[in-house]
């Protein structure tokens, strides 16, 4: 399996196409006026010198033709199709906002990914991560022991500074369960201690879980709804078993989208808890004065904010991010456009984990974002999404932006005002 198609199976293809053709898709493919108004709303189109083949409706049309010709569809066409649906759309839904009919090209592409998956044709990196996720409970295949070790280690680190802080595990009935991206324990464990620090200072009643702690869902990007459902269920089960009121999602975009908005559909019922993104929780803490930030820390920097599509446009948290910024940055400049109207950074739709063959296209499509950032003159670009974060770092190198890319947690670590009485006594340390 992986990149190469196994033998093309027209029956399976046809069956999947029929299964996935819902009333909306049918209507959209029929009423698209071919007006072209969506063209310059897509970052792929703009970054590729306005190549007409990159305009959203054209990509959607390709899918339509495929479905109509499902009997004559063969491996060569599948290859071509595959390049379009994986290499030319991040399913960011920007074009949808600008189409007079609100035609959702992203969901057309998503359906096409399901068709491709029915032929075993998916990017192998995604497949590997999803298989690992289904088997081990997280996409990095971290064992439960390693996970708990990491949490304990982070707790110790944190306690060196804040002796009273803890990272509770499986605390039943806590106010919220904090779920993360598996990259955190694997590559950025500090993300976890930073979050714990914020929660501690805010006096939160929270917990982490031994199981169902990885809230990412790459199966969603593969059009593998069955897999995506199982993955989402791991988180839901963990949360409902712990009887928490809320689940707080780490600074990650697609994780929020899949848990809050897509998974209730896959799972057929509403969750018994509320889903909240970190930015919303942080904004709430700042608003209520539960945490305080020292604005002077970043006074010499100019900041801008990258709205992750799946946090702002598809997650409804555009204002929350901006509210935090007010407490954090003296010199803040918006990108144009921004908020719900932001351009995708080019790292979405699974592009970052797809790595390999897609990297070049990913960097190219990020040109739009790079230019937007350049125009702000910012030295710091804040983004509450792991995918955007990686993409922006790559873009900064590629386009020589000279920016620091930071998550809110990273900035908080430096700017949080810690009450003296909570700090560790410095008697056995003589720094400074």
């Amino acid at each position, binding site marked *: 399996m992986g990149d190469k198609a196994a033998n093309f199976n027209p029956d399976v293809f046809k069956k999947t196409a029929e299964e996935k*053709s*819902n*009333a*909306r898709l*049918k*209507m*959209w493919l*029929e*009423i*698209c*006026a*071919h*007006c*072209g*108004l969506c*063209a*310059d709303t897509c970052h792929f*189109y703009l970054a590729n010198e*306005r190549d*007409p*083949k990159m*305009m959203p*409706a*054209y990509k959607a*049309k390709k899918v339509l033709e495929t479905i109509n010709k499902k009997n004559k569809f063969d491996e060569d066409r599948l290859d071509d199709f595959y390049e379009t649906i994986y290499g030319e759309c991040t399913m960011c839904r920007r074009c*949808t*906002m*600008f*189409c*007079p*009919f*609100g*035609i*959702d090209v992203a969901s057309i592409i998503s359906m096409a990914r399901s068709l491709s998956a029915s032929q075993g044709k998916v990017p192998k990196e995604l497949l590997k991560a999803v298989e690992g996720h289904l088997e081990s409970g997280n996409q990095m295949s971290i064992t439960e022991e390693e996970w708990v070790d990491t949490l304990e280690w982070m707790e110790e680190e944190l306690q060196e500074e804040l002796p009273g802080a803890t990272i509770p595990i499986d605390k039943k009935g806590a106010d919220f369960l904090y779920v993360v991206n598996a990259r955190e324990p694997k590559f950025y464990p500090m993300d976890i201690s930073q979050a714990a620090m914020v929660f501690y200072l805010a006096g939160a009643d929270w917990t982490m879980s031994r199981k169902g702690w990885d809230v990412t869902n790459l199966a969603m990007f593969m059009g593998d709804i069955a897999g995506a459902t199982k993955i989402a269920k791991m988180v839901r089960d963990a949360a409902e078993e712990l009887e928490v009121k809320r689940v707080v999602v780490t600074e990650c975009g697609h994780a929020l989208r899949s848990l809050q*908005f897509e998974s209730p*559909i896959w799972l057929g019922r509403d969750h018994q808890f509320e889903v909240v993104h970190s930015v919303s929780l942080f904004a709430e803490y700042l608003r209520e004065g539960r945490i305080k930030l020292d604005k002077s820390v970043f006074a010499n920097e100019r900041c801008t904010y990258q709205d992750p599509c799946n946090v*702002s*446009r*598809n*997650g*409804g948290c*555009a204002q929350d991010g901006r509210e935090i910024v007010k407490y954090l940055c003296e010199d803040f400049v918006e990108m144009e456009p921004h908020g*719900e*109207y932001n351009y995708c950074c080019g790292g979405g739709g699974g592009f970052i984990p797809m790595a390999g063959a897609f990297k070049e296209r990913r960097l190219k499509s990020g040109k739009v974002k790079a230019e937007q950032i350049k125009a702000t003159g910012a030295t710091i670009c804040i983004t509450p999404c792991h995918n955007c974060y990686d993409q922006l770092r790559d873009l900064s190198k590629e386009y020589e932006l000279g920016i620091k890319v930071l998550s809110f947690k990273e900035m908080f670590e430096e700017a949080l005002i810690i009450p003296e009485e909570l700090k560790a006594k410095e008697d056995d340390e003589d720094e400074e």
Partner: protein
Amino acid sequence: MSLYELLRGPLLWVAFGVFFGGMALRVVLFFQLSMQKDKPIYRFFSWKWLWLSIFHWVIPLNETAKKNPVVTLVGFVFHICLIVTPLFLVAHGVLWYESWEISWWSLPESVTDYMTLIAIGSGLFFGIRRMVSPHVRIVTTAADYLLLVVTLAPFVTGYLAYHQYFDYQTIILLHMFFGELMLVVIPFTKLSHFLMFFFSRAVTGMEFGRRNAPSW
């Protein structure tokens, strides 16, 4: 039965029948399929977002309109002329009355005459735009051109008939024929968007709305 009587009588009935029947069928099929396969529409149904979504596009209160003022202006004018002219034309009013003894308000003939020209002109604008803009050309199909012809033909022939250019008898027959042709193709082509627009805007508006985000 003369050709005129045929077009004025039975074929007109057929055209109206296909038009109304076809559109009704489209709507029924949409509900039927969507209740099975588009459950989120019903689960997250919201009048508020439905109306907001339609409202922001029925009048040009959206980012697309700001970004594309010319296309938006021509597009609105085109659609208004397309709908208003045939419904409020004096000559059509007479026919409505003759057939069903119903009558309503109509526009002065000089106004509808200009509106006809505007409809044709703006239609041509879109036709030319299709040919010259690479990003529009690439999604254009033969059907798009044909449908533009079918849409404009009743206006062109109507204009010629009103001014009695060429042979009136022939032109009026053509006019009736094209008018009926247009009605017949609407339910089966992208022209059905005159109604499906509202459905599409509603579902997308609600989908964005449940994320608390605008779709305009």
